[in-house]
């Protein structure tokens, strides 16, 4: 993985000194509260419902064990012994004190980490495929591109005061695990149909939030060397023309929508034609320099399948189930990637204690080439595990409460922090996830239902990605109580689709029952090996609406009795 050189090191240290100075100037009154707020946000520091919250960047979701141990240390020393992995592959501390934040940033810099631009109206942490460098269907490791963009976007002189936040995702695989179509810019690495040259497809104007939209292809093939100049052209058009009169209409998706896809493309291309590409693009050698850090680790030459693992699986049903559900095929024979669920039944999605972080760091160091990944579904991944080692890894995970075999299943729920922590939330999110998780705790039942991503947001800003959940749940306030709207049919993959409402909003305690009703419709309607989302697509919304309505009426009747 990427390592800081002297320039990166100096840059991050300078940034810590800058933030320290900003805090001092806020406290002595040089900076007003209105001035300080965006400055602290651009360094990941929010003021939430109970306390400050610090969001640490995990660039494209890649960490090593040393970094995870440092994150555990910060959790122990400056927080309440835990941290939270987010839907953008980052990590949040819920209880830091402003006076401690500069010291926390120094500790992060010690392990080549930072909190730069994890919030604010600027280019946010670049996200990517959690199976980068692992997946068989990959054209190229997307992290090389993501790292180049991380550097280019850090403290950009021109694009730090954009109309609104700006999120970029990169995938290098055919199957999109980075949800590029619902990002401000989505980048897909592909091969040119005729020349076989590797380049980029550039998608602009996707996003969730108040007005969910699927991104539009603005360039179907961009030569690799031209990336930064092309990004500069898009960002300059957006910075100059994006709406600033209404924050709900300020994302680039609205500009693309209101300008029209064709006209927006024309403006980007006109800007691109004017700018001097070679002065902007990465100089020769820089991409190669970065790429060298992402060279594959030293794998052993092994047979395709491990006899030891097969034998162990045959005698241990729990291990067998874990590998079946959480295993991901590795491109190198004899290896496997393992999803490590942070969604134990009834637990807070994405939370990890400092003890778990340390234990997991040991496991990653010993069994996964010292590397781990954070997924946008708030889980972790051990990317390079020798199949022979899986029984030992499983035992170590189990000993630390990290061996839940539910990756992608109905209890693998994405949930934003919601009203339990977030100052913007209109309703609680985590307790809904916990209640659904307990309702569907039975392993056999989960397995029968199969892949069913549930995504929950506690407000319209959609940090829980509810629009692209096969079942999406949005918590709002209605007449002084929490109220939940349910959608079905959302999909964040290359077949991106936005979910549709199945009926009126319901009370919190009705949500698990409503999900059961929708699952019953699915189990009744499904054909062959259809996933939930496939059945919605084929059978349409009506049976789900009917099932939901029947549940709501029944529940109403019960309450009346």
């Amino acid at each position, binding site marked *: 993985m990427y390592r800081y*050189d002297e*320039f*990166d090191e*100096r*840059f991050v240290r*300078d*940034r810590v*000194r*800058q933030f320290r*100075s*900003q805090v001092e*100037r806020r406290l002595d*009154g*040089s*900076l*007003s509260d209105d*001035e300080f707020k*965006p*400055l602290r946000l651009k360094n990941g520091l929010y003021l939430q419902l109970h306390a400050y919250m610090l969001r640490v960047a995990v660039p494209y979701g890649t960490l090593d064990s040393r970094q995870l141990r440092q994150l555990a240390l910060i959790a122990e020393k400056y927080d309440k012994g835990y941290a939270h992995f987010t839907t953008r592959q980052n990590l949040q501390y819920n209880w830091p004190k402003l006076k401690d934040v500069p010291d926390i940033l120094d500790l992060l810099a010690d392990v080549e980490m930072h909190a730069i631009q994890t919030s604010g*109206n600027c280019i946010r942490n670049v996200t990517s495929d959690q199976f980068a460098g692992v997946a068989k269907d990959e054209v190229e490791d997307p992290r090389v591109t993501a790292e180049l963009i991380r*550097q*280019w976007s*850090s*403290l*950009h*002189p*021109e*694009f*730090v*005061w*954009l109309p609104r936040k700006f999120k970029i995702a990169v995938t290098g695989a055919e199957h999109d695990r980075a949800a590029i179509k619902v990002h401000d810019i989505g980048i897909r690495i592909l091969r040119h149909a005729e020349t076989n040259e590797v380049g980029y497809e550039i998608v602009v104007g996707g996003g969730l939030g108040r007005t969910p939209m699927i991104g539009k292809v603005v360039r179907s093939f961009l030569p690799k060397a031209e990336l*930064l100049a092309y990004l*500069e052209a898009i960002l*300059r058009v957006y*910075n*100059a023309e994006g709406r*600033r009169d209404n924050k709900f209409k300020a994302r680039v998706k609205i500009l693309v929508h209101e300008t029209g896809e064709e006209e927006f493309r024309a403006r980007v291309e006109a800007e691109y034609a*004017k*700018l*001097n590409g070679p*002065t*902007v*693009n*990465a*100089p*020769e*050698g*820089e991409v190669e*320099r970065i790429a060298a850090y992402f060279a594959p680790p030293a794998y052993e030459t092994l047979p395709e399948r491990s006899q030891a693992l097969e034998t162990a699986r045959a005698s241990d049903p729990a291990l067998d189930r874990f590998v079946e559900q959480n295993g991901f095929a590795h491109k190198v024979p004899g290896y496997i990637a393992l999803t490590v669920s942070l969604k134990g039944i009834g637990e807070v999605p994405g939370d990890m204690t400092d003890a778990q972080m340390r234990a997991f760091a040991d496991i990653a160091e010993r069994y996964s080439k010292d590397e781990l990944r954070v997924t946008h579904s708030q889980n972790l991944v051990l990317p390079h595990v020798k199949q022979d080692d899986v029984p030992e890894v499983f035992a170590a995970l189990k000993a630390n409460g990290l061996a839940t075999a539910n990756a992608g299943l109905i209890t693998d729920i994405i949930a934003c922090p919601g009203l339990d922590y977030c100052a913007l939330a209109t309703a609680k999110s985590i307790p809904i996830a916990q209640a659904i998780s307990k309702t569907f705790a039975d392993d056999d039942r989960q397995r029968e239902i199969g892949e069913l991503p549930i995504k929950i947001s506690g407000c319209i800003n959609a940090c829980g990605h509810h629009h692209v959940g096969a079942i999406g749940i949005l918590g709002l306030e209605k007449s002084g109580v929490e109220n939940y709207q349910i959608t079905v049919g959302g999909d964040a993959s290359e077949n991106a689709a936005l979910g549709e409402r199945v009926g009126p909003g319901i009370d919190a305690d009705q949500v698990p029952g409503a999900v059961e009703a929708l699952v019953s419709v699915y189990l009744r309607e499904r054909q062959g090996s259809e996933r939930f989302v496939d059945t919605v697509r084929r059978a349409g919304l009506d049976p789900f609406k009917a099932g939901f309505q029947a549940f709501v009426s029944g529940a109403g009747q019960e309450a009346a009795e």
Partner: protein
Amino acid sequence: MTTTTILIRPEGQVADEWSVAATAADLSLVEGPAIVPFEAIDAALAERRNAPLGLHLPNHVAIDAVEPYLTQVALVSVAFPAFSDGRGFSLAKRIRRAGFTGTLRATGPLIADQFADALACGFDEVALPEAVAERQPAEQWVEARGIVRDHYQSGYEGGTSILEQRRAAAAAKAEGSHA
């Protein structure tokens, strides 16, 4: 543009030689270099004053509309209605790209932490409302500007980028190994 401003340049606070005229007619009331708003620039140019002219622009103006005037004025001022409105940075970049070599001024309530970025985008100076300057005197601007010493982006003012420095270092190393 009627608020009292102080002028900050990389070396610190400096005297402002420019006056502001709200209309072309007001030009007769001011002596020496004068800045006029975009709506008044045609009339101001037609007056053929002897003293230099400056042009004040809203941050949403299209560069194509501005370009014809860039060879006729000595100063361009870009309005920052709020420090959080970053349009002026992109406009500055486009004004420089169009070949403007005169003084480029950011006018409005920017904050010290934006000084380095403003200079990188092509500004020479910031005309800051007095009320902001009272909290953030020029010394803070000079200091804030120097905290982050390098930047990754190529094609901006303020020294070679990290990417270019890396390339130079690699080239020097290769050179050394040949010798």
